[in-house]
């Protein structure tokens, strides 16, 4: 049932933002992505009391599908006047004898039909429709997804499903998100609904770790150390988060439970600075950077800080280890071993060291796409020192795309679990505070998630809470 053309479109999305590193054409021509599949979504109506929550439902469903970046949404002004609410509403046209001899047979419309949607002016590939009703005091959604390019209702029907939620705005949002997630899954997309973003905010007066929903709602303070806490990271199962805090003896890593908010045991090595903690995708190890023999080096321990292994042995500063979530073996990191800091890669045992960026500009904040092939990072290449922009790269081909172009500093990109979005921070030119945004992997559809205080270092939890 999955739609093949969607995978192609995802690839196009990535490829669209990419050009070859060797051509040295930063800001140069970017190939236009091929059109995404077109999607029409009717305004759902509700029976009885359900109608009260339909504005919330329709807005949520539309935004979820639109913000996925996988679909081209067809404006409602182009829709036919006859709107179907269930598959039975579709009535194939019939033919009748022509009124004048010699004419072709007449087409007689008997109700809404697939071609009303696939043809002009709507010209959509897909149609989302259905309705809601109240059943046993709860909100019931009947949701359908049709491929209107098919010749008949049976072959057009991709989804026909019931969803249940509470009879209020929260229930309307819930069923809309669940339905959207099922639709996006048809296009090879993962819904971000229910995922969390962890970040640093100073809005309480100190830099503390905060969390929010994927769309910026529900912002919550997660720590209260009242010094400086930053560098958040989330465990692969979403149950723990790590960060580092300035203590009396230096910078130390802390690990907290997401559920209880309480500190979990983590034994820090005795040194001046420990930073950039990273949960290994095996769920068993922690990577970080710590001062060893006078230089910050990439180290790895068990989840509780035991069994310390030093992965790098150079007289250079190295930070931000990030492990490939697919291979669980390749480690991206930032190193000054060739001069100014660049993006490097090594294997998790410290071997196979390779420089990824070409030595120009300053590099920071590597992040793996969940597919383990694309990466994102902040780079000043082509700009003044400090003027970071966000780049994506296909690690195998070294094809490179630049997603932001100044408007201040753009830093800390982090891939969303759907592999199609990124979260990042922007500091406007001459600005003193940064805010967190999401965007699609082609740099489009930028959405501001924070407004209060200075908000930095976003990381996207893969887990649904």
């Amino acid at each position: 049932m999955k739609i093949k053309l969607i995978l192609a479109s995802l690839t196009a999305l990535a490829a669209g933002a990419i050009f070859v590193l060797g051509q040295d054409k930063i800001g140069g021509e970017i190939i236009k992505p091929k059109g995404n599949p077109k999607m029409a979504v009717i305004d759902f109506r509700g029976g009885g009391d359900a109608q009260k929550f339909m504005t919330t439902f329709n807005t949520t469903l539309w935004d979820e599908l639109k913000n996925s970046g996988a679909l081209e949404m067809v404006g409602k002004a182009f829709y036919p006047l006859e709107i179907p609410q269930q598959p039975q509403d579709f009535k194939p046209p019939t033919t009748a004898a022509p009124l004048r001899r010699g004419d072709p047979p007449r087409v007689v419309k008997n109700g809404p039909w697939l071609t009303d949607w696939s043809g002009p002016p709507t010209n959509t590939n897909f149609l989302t429709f259905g309705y809601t009703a109240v059943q046993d005091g709860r909100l019931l959604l009947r949701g359908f997804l049709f491929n209107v390019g098919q010749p008949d209702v049976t072959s057009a029907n991709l989804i026909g499903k019931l969803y249940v939620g509470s009879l209020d705005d929260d229930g309307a949002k819930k069923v809309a998100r669940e339905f959207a997630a099922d639709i996006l899954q048809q296009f090879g997309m993962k819904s971000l609904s229910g995922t969390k973003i962890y970040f640093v905010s100073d809005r309480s007066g100190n830099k503390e770790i905060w969390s929010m929903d994927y769309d910026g709602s529900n912002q919550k303070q997660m720590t209260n150390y009242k010094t400086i806490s930053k560098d958040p990271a989330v465990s692969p199962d979403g149950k723990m988060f790590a960060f580092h805090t300035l203590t009396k003896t230096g910078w130390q890593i802390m690990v907290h439970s997401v559920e209880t908010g309480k500190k979990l045991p983590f034994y820090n090595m005795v040194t001046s600075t420990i930073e950039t903690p990273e949960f290994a995708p095996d769920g068993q190890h922690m990577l970080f950077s710590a001062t060893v023999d006078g230089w910050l080096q990439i180290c790895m321990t068990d989840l509780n800080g035991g069994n310390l292994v030093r992965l790098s042995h150079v007289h250079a500063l190295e930070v931000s280890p990030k492990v490939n979530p697919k291979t669980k073996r390749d480690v991206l990191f930032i190193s000054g071993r060739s001069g100014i800091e660049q993006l490097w890669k090594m294997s998790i045992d410290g071997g196979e060291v390779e420089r990824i960026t070409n030595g120009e500009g300053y590099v920071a904040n590597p992040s793996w796409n969940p597919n383990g092939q694309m990466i994102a990072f902040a780079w000043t290449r082509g700009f003044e020192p400090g003027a970071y922009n966000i780049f994506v790269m296909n690690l195998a081909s070294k094809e490179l795309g630049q997603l932001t172009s100044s408007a201040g500093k753009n830093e800390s990109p982090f891939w969303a679990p759907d592999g199609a979005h990124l979260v990042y921070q922007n500091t406007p030119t001459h600005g003193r505070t940064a805010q967190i945004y999401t965007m699609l992997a082609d740099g489009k559809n930028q959405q501001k998630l924070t407004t209060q205080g200075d908000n930095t270092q976003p990381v996207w939890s893969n887990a649904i809470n």
Partner: protein
Amino acid sequence: MRNLSRTLGSVVFAAALMISAAGCKKKAPIVNTPPPTSAPARTTNEPPPSAPLAVRINSFTGEPRSIERGQSATLRWSVGNSTDISLDQNLGAVAANGTRQVFPSQTTTYTLTARSGATQDTRSVTIEVNSSVPPPPPRPTGPTVSPGEILGRDAQDVYFDYDKNDIRADGRSTLTKDADVIKRILSADPGFTIVIEGHCDERGSEEYNLALGDRRAIAVKEFLVQLGVPEDRLKTISFGKERPVCTDQDEACYQRNRRGHLAPAQ
């Protein structure tokens, strides 16, 4: 034997010191010898004299005999066979039996005089007033200016090039002077600990800047240790770009922020 003679010698020396110290000692305040306790008993036990009865001061005491300046003492007396009784020190005529509170500001001798016709009796009591000059404060354990203040006043920040942790030529001369300041502080207060802060300008990434600040602080520490500052008196901490001294977006301000700073450890 040698030890013994040295011990003997030091004993003799100590004795001589004591004698000479005694010789130098400030003269003790004059204190009248208190009347022998037996005296009143004797007086009371004596048979009453024939008329005209002789004037007799039965007792004259001051309590306490020794006071601090500002405190009071109480004179107490008892006189027989006299109505003409007076105290000196401008205290004037008094009754035959009485008390008087006095506030001498310095060691004072009070004399009680009782007359009757041609006979008179006198008795004196001295109230000693201690410490007419306030004592000095307790001996300080270190220099009067705190080591932290000396460090803040005399130690200079050392500056770095962008994205670099090498000590520049100007930094070398700054740190040479700073090493002297630290040694001076440590000679007065060997337990003093200094924390070297590493700072960066706002342009680098947060993560790399924290590493760079750490490395700058360590470079400063290594240089100071080379100049003879004891390593165990020096700690390091990085603030990355968390604590800028200025926030202008120009090279002058960036340079001020790319620094190693010496501060007293908490």
